[in-house]
């Protein structure tokens, strides 16, 4: 019975993702960033295996993909490969295949706990005093505006020695929103958005987390939820409606919102030449290429130097979903940092703190990174390095 169910699911998947249209042109493999640095990975061959044989995938086929979306971007037949591979992962887990996890499963377990019903977290102590924190019940002041923090407090604990000030991203985001007249409240018991669970095939965990989050949002009377994490933003705006129906909540990307509101010039503390990395969930998945650049363009004295491969062609930061990390990841991170260094900019900015974590890890461990380049989040850079013109 299980096998027949699995076969039925796979047939539907082939239709839904358009996999049957694959022309076998292998442009996907030619674009795949892990293939370029030495891994053997062919999305074309995975699609052909499934479409022609209904199966026959190896562990590598299943788990190596970073779901960065470059293959889908280049595919002339528009086969939706990231969705394809994550659904295959879901099917595999349902049939008993063991999923993978880095960091000895610490982060995975953390996310499982975040799905528990009777959870009362204590992770928002770092917020500035003026931010309203809601712990049950409706907001008193913020009129339905909520700011979603995500897993940053936990990552801040785990990657404390990277000194990335992950929580500073959110303080910066909240301050910048305040400067535009928006003061959202923060929910003390918000959960992980479920992005990693979803893309690594743990659909059950994703659904549990999503349901828990939606309940918390609804209880607080959320109408607008501001999200700074590109993965969270994409998950809320795409996966939540797809799996749970219309949420009735407007999820807003913080950078996109600020780019629309902030039009006045910003005085910088001195000059800076920066470069910008289009993280995959912000760029290819959500189409937000111009907004961060528009914000950086507002700051006097800041010169943006583009890397050679940006926007839809931007590389992946080498690790994703906490299931992949090896020499291939390292090579990709080092390549990326070298590309950033080539521009001559002193700092590489990104909108995704997960990218920052992976790149910082590479910087710490690899001595052969040619360029000593600083890293920061766009929101922190905007807020800390610049003072608003009055």
């Amino acid at each position, binding site marked *: 019975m299980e096998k027949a169910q699995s076969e039925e699911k796979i047939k539907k998947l082939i239709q839904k993702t358009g996999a049957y249209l694959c022309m076998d042109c292998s442009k996907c493999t030619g674009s795949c960033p892990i293939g370029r640095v030495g891994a053997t990975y062919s999305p074309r061959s995975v699609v052909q295996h499934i479409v022609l044989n209904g199966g026959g995938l190896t562990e590598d086929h299943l788990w190596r993909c970073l779901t960065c979306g470059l293959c889908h971007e280049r595919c002339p037949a528009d086969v939706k490969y990231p969705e394809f591979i994550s659904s295959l992962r879901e099917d595999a887990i349902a049939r008993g295949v063991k999923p993978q996890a880095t960091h000895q499963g610490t982060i995975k377990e953390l996310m499982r706990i975040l799905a528990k019903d009777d959870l009362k977290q204590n992770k928002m102590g770092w917020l500035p005093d003026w931010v309203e924190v809601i712990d049950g019940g409706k907001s008193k002041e913020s009129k339905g505006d909520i700011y979603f923090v995500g897993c940053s407090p*936990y990552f801040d*604990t*785990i990657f*404390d020695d990277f000194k990335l000030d992950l929580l500073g991203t959110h303080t910066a985001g909240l301050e910048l929103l305040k400067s535009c007249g928006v003061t959202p409240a923060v929910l003390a018991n918000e959960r992980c958005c479920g992005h990693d669970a979803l893309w690594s095939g743990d659909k059950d965990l994703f659904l*549990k987390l999503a349901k828990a989050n939606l309940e918390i949002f609804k209880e607080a009377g959320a109408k607008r939820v501001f999200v700074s994490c590109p993965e969270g933003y994409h998950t809320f705006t795409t996966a939540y409606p797809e799996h749970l129906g219309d949420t009735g909540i407007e999820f807003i990307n913080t950078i996109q919102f600020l780019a629309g509101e902030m039009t006045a010039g910003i005085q910088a503390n001195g000059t800076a030449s920066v470069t910008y990395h289009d993280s995959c969930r912000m760029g290819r998945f959500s189409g937000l290429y111009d907004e961060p650049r528009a914000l950086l363009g507002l700051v006097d004295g800041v010169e943006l130097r583009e890397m050679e491969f940006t926007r839809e062609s931007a590389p992946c930061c080498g690790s994703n979903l906490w299931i992949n990390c090896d020499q291939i990841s390292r090579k990709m991170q080092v390549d990326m940092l070298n590309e950033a260094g080539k521009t001559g900019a002193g700092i590489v900015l990104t909108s995704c703190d997960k990218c920052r974590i992976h790149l910082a890890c590479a910087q710490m461990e690899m001595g052969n990174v040619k360029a000593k380049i600083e890293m920061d989040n766009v929101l922190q850079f905007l807020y800390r390095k610049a003072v608003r013109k009055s």
Partner: protein
Amino acid sequence: MADFEPRIVAFACNWCSYAGADLAGVSRLQYPPNIRTIRVMCSGRVTPGWILRAFEHGADGVYVSGCHIGDCHYAFGNKMAEKQVALAKKLVEQLGLEPDRLHLEWVSASEGQKFADSVTGFVERIKSLGESPIRRKD
């Protein structure tokens, strides 16, 4: 509260702590039966992931035990245990559990009494804290 029997997962290192626990048993020293011990070669093997997994599966407390600093059979494994348990404690606290639910103790192979005493004390503490807030199955 009086009927509450805590469920505690204990990690004990092979060379010191597990031997110490064995000594307590052979010496017929009485201590509460609430701990379920998992033997590891070194306390440094205990990852935050395992600790969280124990809580996720409904443990009310986690007890990690290894050799005294300087005595680790693998030179500095217990130093890593210190770091990892400290990290796990922070995560546990952020998750809303009382940090006291996680305990690190150095117990050597000859310290059977110490083992029995510290376990007894830990069980009592957990009893007073009550059931883990996330123990209930969803």
